[in-house]
């Protein structure tokens, strides 16, 4: 049996985006353990649609939609990320050492996206499953229309937090400017908190003293319960 190749290196300088992504997809398909990506230069669409297991290390900043539409990928970004980092991740993990711009981890479907710094507005928007962890603060409308999963914000959260969420849970360590519509604050259980602390420790993020837990209060689940029942009775 051929030995598993441990590592490849890719220098993005002077290469087309399609070439870079093809290199990464090929490496993943060949069963390479890790690719070190040099000079990402904040380019957009780095590591799109990689669905074989691989570890990627970006030495620098990445642009929009880095590590997006991926499955089974574990990526570390040693810099900051543009909009939509980890977009639609199925399974795997994306760790950003710096900050992330707007809409971090949009429509996350599984796995975990960890931003050690802060995130911009609309992060965790339409989250379907998995965890979004933010070491710093989160911009307005974070968790908007969240469907399931967990968002953990160690710092402060701006306005409309969790607005119109269907389900899932948001934990906030710092101040909340304003709750979104249809959101309730509940007591976080000890088990919950222990799990969060352990999770944060794994990424070297110092946990805040405590967490507020936000869930959907159910008021927006039905347009008008009264006529929903009427429809149910019709046939």
């Amino acid at each position: 049996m051929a030995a598993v190749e441990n590592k490849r290196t890719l220098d993005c300088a002077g290469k087309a985006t399609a070439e870079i992504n093809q290199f990464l997809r090929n490496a993943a398909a060949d069963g390479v353990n890790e690719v070190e990506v040099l000079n990402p230069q904040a380019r957009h669409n780095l590591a799109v649609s990689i669905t074989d297991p691989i570890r990627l290390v970006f030495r620098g900043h990445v642009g929009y939609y880095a590590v997006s539409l991926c499955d089974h990928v574990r990526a570390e970004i040693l810099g900051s990320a543009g909009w939509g980092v980890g977009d639609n991740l199925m399974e795997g993990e994306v760790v950003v050492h710096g900050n992330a711009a707007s809409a971090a981890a949009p429509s996350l479907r599984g796995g975990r996206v960890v931003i050690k710094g802060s995130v911009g507005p609309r992060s965790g928007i339409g989250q379907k499953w998995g965890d979004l962890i933010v070491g710093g603060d989160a911009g307005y409308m974070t968790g908007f229309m969240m469907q399931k999963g967990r968002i953990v914000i160690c710092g402060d959260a701006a306005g409309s937090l969790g607005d119109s969420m269907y389900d899932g849970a948001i934990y906030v360590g710092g101040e909340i400017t304003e709750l979104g519509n249809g959101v309730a604050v509940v007591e976080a259980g000890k088990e919950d908190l222990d799990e969060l602390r352990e999770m944060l420790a794994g990424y070297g993020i110092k946990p805040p003293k405590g967490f507020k837990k936000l869930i959907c209060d159910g008021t927006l689940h039905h347009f008008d319960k009264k006529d929903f029942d009427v429809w149910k009775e019709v046939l």
Partner: protein
Amino acid sequence: MEGSSVKAERPTVEPAASDFPRLREFGGIWSPEAIEEIHEKADLGRYQIRGQATKRKDFPSFDDLVFVPSGLSRVALEGYRERCDTQVVIGEGRVKRPLVLERPIMIAGMSFGALSVNAKRALGMAATRCGISTCTGEGGMHPEERKYSSKLVYQYLPSRYGLTPYDLRKADMIEIVVSQGAKPGTGGILLGLKVSDEVAEMRTLPKGVDQRSPCRHPDWLGADDLPVKLEQLREATDYAIPISVKVGASRTYDDVRLAARGGVDAVVFDGAEAGTAASPKIQLDHAGVPTVAAVGEAAEALRDLGMKEEVKLIVGGGIKNGADAAKCIALGADAVYIGSAVIIALNCHRPLYVDDYARLGTTPYECCHCHTGLCPVGITTQLPKLVARLDPEEAADRVTNFLNAMTMEIQLFARSCGKKHVNDLDGNDLRALTHDISLMTGVPMVGLNGRVPAWRKF
């Protein structure tokens, strides 16, 4: 106050406005319908929601245009003998695997969720037989739909329900939905009874919830971001398949221009007559531009950019037959999207199960109750008992027949105007019946033959 405790007796059965036919003679702004609408809102405390399309009759329509076929000045094609081609290719010379449509017709996006799985199967079978595409609509790619449709357009929507990189790779075209004609600027609605176990699972929602979809994409907002988003989707599909943007007709010239410059292979728009499974009624009637008025604008935007051949124009919204489609093509569309028409071909409005229509408070031809999830003929429902009422094989035959008839109608106009390809029809083959439609479309008025009207002298 004395007497305030006395309860008035209320009649138990309230007749409908239609039970008083003579009321219609009163006219004025407080028509029976306007009164009934206010009563309903006063009861519900919210806007009215319903399926189907606007019921306005005063929109300009394709009926305001007529064809001017061949005579001595032009030669017609021999109707039963000479070929009149119908093929349209999207993304030719731009992507590795362009979408080849054997006819200039596509089945519009209607979700599994809004539609039953049997309806999806039937549409897939019929489209495959006719060499045209179906479209997933919102809510993900149902495996049955992929199985039955040889050409499947995968909608990429703000909600991203059910989106996976694997399904993107299985698609034959991607349609990035920005807005839709029936309710431009707002998101979809799927009321609780239709959010069955399977629908909830595909969309990651609590079962039975009234789903309101977002109307803005979560991770890109405007024309500046579009090229970056497009590059992402091209990467996810290996630059193999065409990608379009869909917008509801509103500021059509600007929207089409921005989409084409953003780098799409096709622009799709649907006019204000477009259908829906659930929409605020007020919006169906008062938002968006009618299809016939927007086609010319859209085509002009592409011509002005010098991209009319390269970027295809797909137009939907209230297209009922081959005449509408042929006129739409003559005004600049490359293909038409049909939704409501094929739903009707499936059996919608058929006077079967009349008692169930009555239980919904409607009649077969008036029905617009798709939003309730209780479709009497099994099309827009998730209840197994109702879904079983639609036999996919039989329904596929009806849709195939309808698509064949419609194609023949389009060819009929093309042949009679002397065109060897249906897409060779152009504005010169048309005349306008009204001033309004002439102004909107740039098509000359009937009877004037391009002359300045005689009354201009006075």
